[in-house]
């Protein structure tokens, strides 16, 4: 079955590469947008308790919605295609990044903050030179969770005409062709595992000395 699947990829390289490209494109853009929205938002709500309460609760409520429903809801709002999928995946990416970044920024060691203020740093300096560097590991952890979730969500994009590798799975189940199904499922699994592994190693390399001390 697997050899049939590999043969199919070999004989339809452009079709496979197009799906892979769509998959990576929508995941990458959504993750980028998610970071661009969630990180500034985390800083914005940092010292505003009531705003933070509202935003965190909204985000938590959003998280209970299944990803299939978030994708599906985009169809009546934005139609079908790549764009609605990107919007839906961005909605999926924001919660983990926002929550991790907010908790990381908030729970920075108070002694470090006091020392920074004592040294005469302005609020802006405290934010950029103390809070953000100290919160970087948890921001990264949030982005890692988001990346895996977005890749998983992207497999559901074909339901709303968004394309990607999930297309082969959906077609495979539709025509009950097991090898076609594997053409989608195996690369999806490898992509997700590879991303998780790479980001995990990167996290270790980037932040190991700080956690060790």
């Amino acid at each position, binding site marked *: *079955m697997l050899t049939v699947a590999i043969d199919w990829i070999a004989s339809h390289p452009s079709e496979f590469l197009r799906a892979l490209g769509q998959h990576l494109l929508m995941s990458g853009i959504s993750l980028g947008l998610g970071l661009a929205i969630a990180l500034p938002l985390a800083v914005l709500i940092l010292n505003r308790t009531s705003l933070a309460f509202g935003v965190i609760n909204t985000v938590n409520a959003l998280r209970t919605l299944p990803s299939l429903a978030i994708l599906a*809801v985009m169809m009546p709002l934005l139609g079908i295609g790549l764009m609605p999928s990107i919007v839906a995946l961005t909605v999926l990416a924001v919660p983990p990044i926002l929550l991790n970044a907010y908790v990381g920024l908030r729970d920075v060691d108070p002694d470090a903050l006091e020392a920074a203020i004592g040294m005469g740093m302005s609020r802006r300096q405290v934010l950029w030179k103390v809070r953000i560097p100290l919160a970087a590991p948890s921001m990264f952890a949030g982005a890692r969770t988001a990346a895996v979730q977005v890749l998983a969500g992207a497999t559901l994009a074909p339901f709303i005409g968004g394309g990607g590798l999930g297309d082969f799975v959906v077609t495979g*189940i539709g025509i009950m062709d097991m090898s076609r199904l594997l053409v989608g499922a195996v690369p999806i*699994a490898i992509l997700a595992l590879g991303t998780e592994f790479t980001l995990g190693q990167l996290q270790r390399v980037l932040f190991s000395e700080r956690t060790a001390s």
Partner: protein
Amino acid sequence: MKWAPKHIPEILLAVWQHLVLSVTSVLIGLVVALMIGVLCARRPKLYAFALTISNVIFVIPSLALFALLIPFLGLGTKPALVGLSSYCLLILLRNIVTGLQGVPADVLDAADGMGYSRWQRLIRIELPLALPMIVSGARIALVTVIGIATVAAFIDGGGLGTIILIGIDQEYPEKILVGGVLTALLAIIFDFAMTQAEKLVTRWR
């Protein structure tokens, strides 16, 4: 809201299927995770191995995992149950082992001194002390599985995902919303109920 009020029995049936599917998967996952957890709670190398395997399963996107099971198990409830219970393993295993490892060494010594056999010690001392962590793991697993179970509809697993998929096919936003919101509600209700259970268990302990 035109469709929902006229199709309440259909919706309730989907809710019921969704519940049965999610709860059964977590129960199966719990049995498997307990066996693995007890085996590797005091064996760090084996635990690291089991953790890696369950993390690999957890990271594979749900649609792909279900798809990989279809050649072996076909369509329907069977691959849905297997897939969903495999998803719980990571969460359950981590909590079970953390709970078991949290039992203080003096307590274990005392139990040994009182002449408890391995098995008695496990049933009477270790598992009851680890119970709050286990319940907490079951809560997170159940909330996660309730969300993922919507995808199981695509491989004929039934449940609320069916309503969402029909809504997509017919471009009928109300069905998508009914399916999605009910799934979220189920997750919230169980999150709350299990949190209460967790408190109760902690007090009882």
